[in-house]
């Protein structure tokens, strides 16, 4: 295929892929790197299902070109698992039944992780505002907020 060779780092590992210049990073991650945790909901930056971290900052991978990833550091939901063990946020999402169909979940997990890194003890309001860029049509959000609060509490305990 014709495309540009891109060298980048995904979840700590060096990754190379070739993609057309107008392909989104979302499509490149899913179809060329094989990381299908990023989901396409809207494709226009409204729903957050494709959330990743780019050089540590939260972003919608549908609004990034694959070629822009050259030399950058990307984090996806697949990077949350460490040594085969689920991240506290993932455990709490299961415990609180903070998902139904699951399409929005990877995006919520990535966004919530960034939220808790920046603010380990957020109020309910701060969580709701912080996750305003992630849409969920199943849960009504309440269980997600509760799961993030529980994860925050657990993570603060672990740090002490």
């Amino acid at each position, binding site marked *: 295929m014709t495309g*540009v060779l891109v060298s980048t780092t995904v979840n700590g590992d060096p990754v190379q892929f070739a993609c*057309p*210049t*107008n392909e*989104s990073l979302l499509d490149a991650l899913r179809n060329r790197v094989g990381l299908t945790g990023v989901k396409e909901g809207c*494709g*226009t*930056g*409204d729903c*957050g299902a494709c*959330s990743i971290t*780019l050089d540590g*900052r*939260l*972003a*919608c991978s*549908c*609004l*990034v*070109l694959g*070629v*822009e990833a*050259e030399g950058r550091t990307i984090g996806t939901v697949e990077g949350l698992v460490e040594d085969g063990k689920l991240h506290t946020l993932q455990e709490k999402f299961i415990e609180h039944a903070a998902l139904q169909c699951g399409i929005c979940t990877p995006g919520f997990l990535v*966004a919530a992780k*960034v*939220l808790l890194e920046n603010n380990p003890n957020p109020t309910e309001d701060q969580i709701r*505002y*912080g996750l*305003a*860029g*992630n849409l969920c049509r199943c849960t009504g959000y309440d269980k997600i907020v509760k799961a993030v609060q529980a994860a925050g509490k657990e993570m603060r305990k672990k740090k002490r």
Partner: protein
Amino acid sequence: MRYETPTTTKEAATLLYKEKGKAYVLAGGTDLLVRMKMDMIEPDLVVDIKRIPATKAITKSAVGFKIGATVCGAVMGEHSALVKAWPGVVEATNLIGSDQIQGRCTMVGNLCNASPAADSVPAMIAAGAKAVIVGKDKRRTVAVEKIVTGPGKTSLAKGELIEAITLPARPPRSGDAYLRFTPRTEMDIAVVSAAVSLTLLRGVVKSVRVVLGAVAPTAVLVPKAAKAIIGTKLDDAALENLAAACSEACNPIDDKRGTIEYRTKVVGVLAKRAAKIAYQRAGGVL
């Protein structure tokens, strides 16, 4: 589509100038990629300016702040000196989209996208911001209110791009504020907005700029609204005059988000509230 990553602004300008097809600048991409996705545009050339050092920094000097064209909203919000000096400009920019968008979106992109409802634009104009424009052969600095000429249209010539925005040094007792009305609290587009930047002398408004958004094809600087509160301590009569001048300066559209009548009324309310916030931020006591 050709994708280029120049490392100087001049190189970027030359690439844009020489392209025979459709050329676009890519900064945060939060508007450009949406337009590509919706098939509204089909670029022949995209010039990614994020590898240009001059576009990446916020610098403070005796003449004020310079904010590079690829500085994202989140970075502005984390810059404590900028937040302290220009809280209105920062709060306006931080209203754009979600945290995901804030990590990418830029003030210059918001300006060049040229939406009548752009949040950062009224705040920049109120602040007396200037755009540093780089072309193939020359640079020029232009007041921000001269950039947008209509919905989706700017005064930039072929091959020109904005490298940075400058905000002037702040006299003591100054404050600015931006307010918008949206049906939702987050992730929405302004139905009406107002920005006010002022300087006080012994509690009296000495100088002020009032700018309205989403009520005309471009943001509107309203000298008559400024005149209404200069020399006052924002007493009720002065605020009513301010609101009336703002309503009079409106030329809004009717759409599903708001009627002409509604926008014309609410713009005065927002301008009054924004003026009060700016006044208090400048150290004034209401």
